[in-house]
């Protein structure tokens, strides 16, 4: 792994980050938006682990952070999905364009 410079890994994470963001901006299905968020969180995780591994191997701060992020991502996803399901009950659709009754 030493041959691969850190910046290349960062390239992966950053790209992933913005891909996820793009998905979040464009996917109209709420669940797919949620997936995009997960992608973003993963890119963050890659950052943490990579930095930890490459730059600061002395301590495992990054690793722990990424672990907690994983856990929280799970919780967040769960609640989000619960909310989406409830919204589906009310709107009979999970198209985000449909849920814009409150505006201006």
């Amino acid at each position, binding site marked *: 792994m030493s041959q691969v410079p850190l910046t290349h890994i960062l390239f992966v994470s950053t790209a992933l980050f913005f891909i996820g*963001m793009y998905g*979040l*901006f*464009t996917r*109209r299905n709420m669940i797919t*938006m949620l997936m995009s968020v997960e992608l973003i969180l993963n890119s963050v995780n890659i950052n943490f682990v990579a930095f930890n591994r490459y730059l600061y191997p002395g301590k495992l701060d990054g690793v722990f952070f990424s672990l907690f992020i994983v856990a929280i991502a799970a919780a967040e996803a769960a609640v989000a999905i619960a909310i989406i399901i409830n919204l589906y009950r009310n709107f009979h659709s999970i198209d*985000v*364009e449909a*849920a*814009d*009754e*409150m*505006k*201006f």
Partner: protein
Amino acid sequence: MPNSACIILIPLLPLAGFVVLGLFGRRYFSRFAGVLGTGVVLVSAVLAIWVAWQYFGTCLADGYCRQTVPVRFTWLRVSPGLSIDMSIIFDPISVMMIFVVTFISLMVHIYSLGYMKGEERYATYYAFLNLFTFSMLGLVLAGNIFETYIFWELVGCSSFLLIGYYYDRPTAVAAAKKAFIVTRFADLGFLIGILILSFYAGSLDIRTLIQRLVQPGSQLGSITTASFLGISMLSWGLGLVFVGGAGKSALFPLHIWLPDAMEGPTPVSALIHAATMVVAGVYLVARLYLVYVGFDHFEVLHVVLWVGAISALLAAVIACTQTDIKRVLAYSTMSQIGYMMFALGTFHPVGEATTLGYTAAMFHLFTHAFFKALLFLCAGVIIHRVHSNEMQDMGGLRKALPLTHGCFLIACLAIAGIPPFAGFFSKEDILLAAWDSNKPVYYIGLFTSGLTAFYMFRLYFSVFWGRPARAGGAQFGAGGGHHSEGSGGRHSEGSGGHHGEGFVGRHEEAPFTMKLPLVILALGAVFAGWVPFSRLVTYDGMPQEGHGIGVFAIPPVMVALIGIGIASYLYRVASDRPERAAAAFRGMYQFVYHKFYIDEVYLFITKRVIFNLIGRPAAWIDRNIVDGMMNGLAAVTAWTSTAIKRLQSGKVQDYALYFFMGIAGLAVLFIYIYS
């Protein structure tokens, strides 16, 4: 020297009368209001006469008249040097004036006892009369030029109140407003004049002011050199003060209010608009006479001279055409005041022997007070009788009103300047002064005196001689448009009580209270001329040797007699001669009859110019532009808030997008641009 206590009492008593009557009059003693008011004035008149007697006594004793200030206290300290004092100045003219004012005022008070009897606002009337008397006394006694201004305003106000006494009559209200506003406009000049003079003289006290302005002193240089539009500040100051005077004294072109002021009760006209208030302007100029003639700055005196002359002539001409008895008298008043003014204008450089004009003006003021008041009071009796003041409703009254007839005749002779009546002496002095200083003015004066005689006797004959007017005069008068005083509600609410049934076949001429003043004033009109004025009233207190009555007196008298002759030819017996005369020069007659359309010019200026070109735009701008700006701000805000509402599209993806754009924006801005 009279002690100051009773001097103060002279003005304060009427004030007390005003306060008492004003506060409690209506409620508590509406009956005795007249008696109370009259009594107060009586006391102060007595005091005044006594004071005058003593003062002039001492004058004669020690050969010259001292100018003293018996009373002074600071009313308002404007700035360390400048303070408005309440002070009383004592010198020949002020003493003479307090005598005139209290005396005439007393007469009018007594007269009104009968004349205003049964009026609803009887007490108020007397309260106002007292107020006026107080203010007038304060005006003449003022030893501080600002004090003068204060009482000047008060006089104007009480005149306003009295003219508008019949407040439910629109014409009266209009007249009152007109009088107040015109004089107020003139007073503006007075005020600014005061500001200028006091600024350079550094004092408001009249004596100090005169001293500083006359003695070549420190301020003097600045005020004569400092100039505006090429005219020295001193001239500006004096000129503006004169404007104030001209306004009060109804001189051309500020005279328009005087004829309308006749809407007030006749005694009021007699007191305010004939004898006292209207001569305040003359008095004011006389007060500052030393400054006017102080050193060779005569442009202002020229103005005084010519304004006086023009007013005299103009008014006389108009008077010849008027048919409303009170208006005729009003114009004659204006003309006589014109006399006094140009008398003051006829200056001799100080240092020469005399300034005859000063004495003459004061003299004429003195005599005029008597016969003009008398004329008005007589007119009051007549109007009271005829219930109209249109001349064509009158005629042949000499049987019905013998006493009035006599008094009226005396007054006419006096004003016409027929010896040995009062008017003769004073007018002759004036003409003499004019002759010495300015020939054209002299001829104007001469011609005017002829006109005076003519219109006075025109009035006299058409009222007392000729065919008795129809009994329906009252009714006719009632129809007689706004000219006719009888038309308004006055007599219905007023003293009609005991004159209700009209005058035909009535024997009683007038109540005693109305006759008495006539008689007294008639005596005055006869004998006032014998007072040795040149010995008592002079600009510097030094007596001048009187000049005997010589050949110089002949032309005026002749002119006067000619005037009388024409008048009697035209009006003594009823005929169509006047009409033919009028028809002869119809155009000019109309022009004069409408008072040279001066009123219309004023109307045009006020209504068209001031209201439409200044007032209306100002109001419009305020509502639409200035306020529009304020509302515009609000409108812009509201518009913006609708314009940006799209940001809140309600779509969460937009929110996220904006969110990141915000971050990117901040990053670019603060990392690359701003740092």
